[in-house]
């Protein structure tokens, strides 16, 4: 095997300037988290929900990078090979995800937060809640911690194996492509593993915040949101790297294809959003509609903005051929949609946490009348959050209240997100700089170099 030789730099250089900027970003995140802790309520629910929000979002992006790389391996794809190191490097952020999710799981285990109603022991408890007793086989601190560590650990293990094989192929790839064939094995096992385990983790991490609510679509919907965010990050990083003189091999053709994926999967995400929403709206079962009622009434800007930013914008901008090939338009859409999906996760997590915290904090005042959180929620839905003074007095008060950081992302949320993003990029750059940018002995390299739509 001979090696592909390029005039451009073969390795990404992680400069001290990069490091400084990213360290500032990470420091900003730490400061914001610290400040959040200070200004927070007794349970530090804003702090914990911000931590959960960003951990879940960025872990998912790392997972999807690995997942899609494996899909490409299994589908004999040849177009992406030149920049597959980008996905490999992104997926190594699963290590960060493992650390943060384990921290959250451990603190939940020790009842150090009130993110999850089902894990609560203080005052407002799951013990007298028939529905939660029924779910306790799955919604309990042992399963939460165990699944988190085992599954995220497994994801990390598989992606590390694949990345090691990929790097080994650079130096001693042979004509029989033995590395590639081994990668296929890992990729083939990884796909069903992610298929099953990602659903379990999404139910645990996110869906169980609204512990009474359930939707069979939820895992796939969340997965699609991760996927689009991952594609947006990919294209933004490629635009940046190309701007710095790396990756001359990545052409408009590759960028165009990523643009198509952002376009197509934005529509797919919308399809799942619509299917979930429409079926729940149509059947009009109170236990299910409460989820959307809560969000439409109290988070109208985010709720409708979510659809505008994540569907209308990419749909109309990226429908054209040229906007998917120009860095300006594609980069703009990718940036906005990336934040859009971060907002989508905000909308999945914050309302439920707000309700849980509200109940946990206000339990004493409420007495027994609110043992069943559902009844409470349904009342909310019925009167749109106004009126019925006594029965849901506390809830009404809560509903009309605008709390920055809960009702809408504030500067602290933004700063925390920048911190997590900086950490993500830090790990991404570190890993990226450790190996050649272009995998020289990949059997599909030539196809990818000459990729032409």
């Amino acid at each position, binding site marked *: 095997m001979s090696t592909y030789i390029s005039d451009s730099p073969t390795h990404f250089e992680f400069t001290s300037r990069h490091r400084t900027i990213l360290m500032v970003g990470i420091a900003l995140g730490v400061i914001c988290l610290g400040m959040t802790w200070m200004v927070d309520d007794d349970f530090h629910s804003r702090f914990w929900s911000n931590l959960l929000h960003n951990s879940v979002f960025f872990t998912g992006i790392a997972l999807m990078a690995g997942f899609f790389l494996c899909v490409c391996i299994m589908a004999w794809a040849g177009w992406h090979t030149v920049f597959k190191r980008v996905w490999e490097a992104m997926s190594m952020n699963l290590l960060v995800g493992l650390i943060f999710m384990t921290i959250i799981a451990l603190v939940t285990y020790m009842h150090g937060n009130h993110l999850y109603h089902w894990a609560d022991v203080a005052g407002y408890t799951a013990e007298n809640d028939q529905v939660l007793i029924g779910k306790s086989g799955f919604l309990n601190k042992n399963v939460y911690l165990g699944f988190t560590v085992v599954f995220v650990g497994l994801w990390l293990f598989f992606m590390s194996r694949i990345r090691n094989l990929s790097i080994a192929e650079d130096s001693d790839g042979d004509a029989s492509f033995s590395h590639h064939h081994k990668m296929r094995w890992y990729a083939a096992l990884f796909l069903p593993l992610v298929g099953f385990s990602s659903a379990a983790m999404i139910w645990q991490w996110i869906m169980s915040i609204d512990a009474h609510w359930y939707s069979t679509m939820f895992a796939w919907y969340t997965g699609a949101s991760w996927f689009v965010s991952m594609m947006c990050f990919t294209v933004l990083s490629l635009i940046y790297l190309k701007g710095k003189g790396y990756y001359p091999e990545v052409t408009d053709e590759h960028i165009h294809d990523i643009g198509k994926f952002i376009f197509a999967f934005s529509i797919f995400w919308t*399809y799942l959003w619509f299917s979930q929403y*429409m*079926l729940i709206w149509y059947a009009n079962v109170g236990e299910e509609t409460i989820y959307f009622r809560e969000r439409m009434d109290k988070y109208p800007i985010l709720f409708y903005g979510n659809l505008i930013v994540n569907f209308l914008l990419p749909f109309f901008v990226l429908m054209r051929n040229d906007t998917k090939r120009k860095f300006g338009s594609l980069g703009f859409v990718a940036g906005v949609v990336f934040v859009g999906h971060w907002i989508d996760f905000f909308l999945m997590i914050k309302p439920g946490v707000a309700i849980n915290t509200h109940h946990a904090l206000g339990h004493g005042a409420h007495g027994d009348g609110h043992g069943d959180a559902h009844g409470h929620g349904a009342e909310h839905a019925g009167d749109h959050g106004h009126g019925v003074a006594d029965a849901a007095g506390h809830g009404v008060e809560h509903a009309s209240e605008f709390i920055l950081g809960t009702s809408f992302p504030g500067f602290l949320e933004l700063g925390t997100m920048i911190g997590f993003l900086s950490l993500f990029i830090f790990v991404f750059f570190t890993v990226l700089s450790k190996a050649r940018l272009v995998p020289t002995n990949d059997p599909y390299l030539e*196809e990818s170099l000459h990729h032409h739509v």
Partner: protein
Amino acid sequence: MSSPISVIREPLVRGHKTYHQITEDLISPTEKTPGKGWIIGFILSVSILAFGIFCILWTIWHGIGTWDLNRTIGWGWDITNFVWWIGIGHAGTLISAILLLFRQKWRTGVNRAAEAMTIFAVMCAGLFPLIHMGRIWMAMFIFPYPNTRGPLWPNFNSPLLWDVFAISTYFTVSLLFWYTGLVPDFATVRDRASGFRKKIYNFLSFGWTGSAKHWQRWEALSLVLAGIATPLVLSVHTIVSFDFATSVIPGWHTTIFPPYFVAGAIFSGFAMVLTLMIVTRKILNLQEYITIAHIESMNKVIVVTGTIVGVAYLTELFIAWYSGYVYEQFAFFNRAFGPYWWSYFGMMFCNVLSPQIFWSRKMRRNITVTFWISILINVGMWFERFVIIATTLARDYLPSSWSLYSPTWVEIGIFIGTMGLFSTLYLIFCRVAPVVAVAEVKSILKTAGDQYTGPDAIYHGHNHGHGGGVHGIIEGTDYHAMHGHGGHGGHGDHGGHGGHQEHTDHRAHETHSHAATATAKETGAQVAGASTAAAASQKMDYNIPDYGGLKDDLTKIEGIGPKTERALNSVGINSFAALSEMEVDVIQDILDKADGNFLSSPESWPEQAQLAAEGRWSELQVLQDKLNGGKY
């Protein structure tokens, strides 16, 4: 020519086909008298269809009471069959639209037949809601048109009405897609036909001449239709799933239904494509066009979609428990342990477990195993719909109205009748149209033919060099090392082709623009210089057979003029015999590289040269009368 092809890709067209052979192999089944097998099959299909029609008429005459539906179980085999057939109708458009967008070359081997199946399956499916109405003559009530029934309109809130629109749109677009693909192929059939047959195919092919403009419009239309059809593939089964999921019936009202139905539909569609293609390729001898590689790819789709369906089954099951909703929990308990438990376990076994066998490459490439698994999946997907519909309805909220259902002979007869309809239409289709898309297979020949790629390749290095010339225009990148490397030559039978070609390529890259032209000019210049070394190296490149000093007048071949003759002579083709042994695309390549424009197509030259070399001049005359400027 297109981009370089990775050496680890498997060829998709076997047998070193030339364009002419592809035409021969794929068109000829439409020209022969049907064989005994076809006639027996056709008689059988039509008889079954006739029985089906009898059962439908029986239903219409006597009423829906001839079925075993009752007040509790209002949907039985009819809607089960409807959803089953609609599902089968998903593979065709998926293959032609989504796989087109994903640039999957293997689609070309199976897309034509799969699209035909889609159309026939949707026709079978459409029958069931119509006859389920009981009074079929009232069928126009489903259409929203100004009427004399006062304020009576179809219920736009009902997913059943959305179905009418979704399915009719899908049917229309699938039909257009299928027919668009058929137009150039019908023209090929026409050009080989005579008499009345020619007139029919002339009419069917819309006066297609194969001009560049026609092809350009054809490709644009295919892409537009693919764009429209892709959301349609998702929408049809999504809306069928809404028929169930918008209700508040436990086991039906679940949000995962839309994507899960779509995945299941693709799954069952591919199973049916496999069932039929395995039979078709054997009977029509299409093993070189529908290769093991095609079957393996389809089996991968089967294992992926089967596993997605498995994730969905388990998600439903798990969330039923998780919901804490006793009716939902009972619905699933009833599916597994109720009176129809066998259909639930049949479904799990056939759809989730049996496809897992395709994790083994050996099994994926085993025709017999694939065939039987595809049958199992067809059965399993029928069970799935039966589980969802009958099992759920049989145990409703009120135990006093619980009921059971088993189909009457009329219902069974109608179902079997639709299979008769399906196979009758498919058998007719096999006779009148090429089962494999001729033009589309030709379009992938140079990138997926086994003479160009894979272990039997003979032109690989050459093809690659040229491909690099066209596409490798990336600023500031040195491809020299890449081109020099023996890995392309991993098919090293081209060791000899050596320096000249690579050198040309490299120079072409350096110019960074119009690389292909530069390559051509350069080659042309060297050829014109008549340097012995260059000629020798060219000879080696093209594997030109040596007939010593034999020299014929090549202009006797229709399509070859003095200029073309000089170009051929310059690379060493001097005799009819030598020309007859050349592959058409190699000749084309020589012409492309030579100086000047050559408008004629060499597709018929080897055949003409063969006749000339053997001195069969009268036959050559007959052939040339049929040819049009050397084209078939």
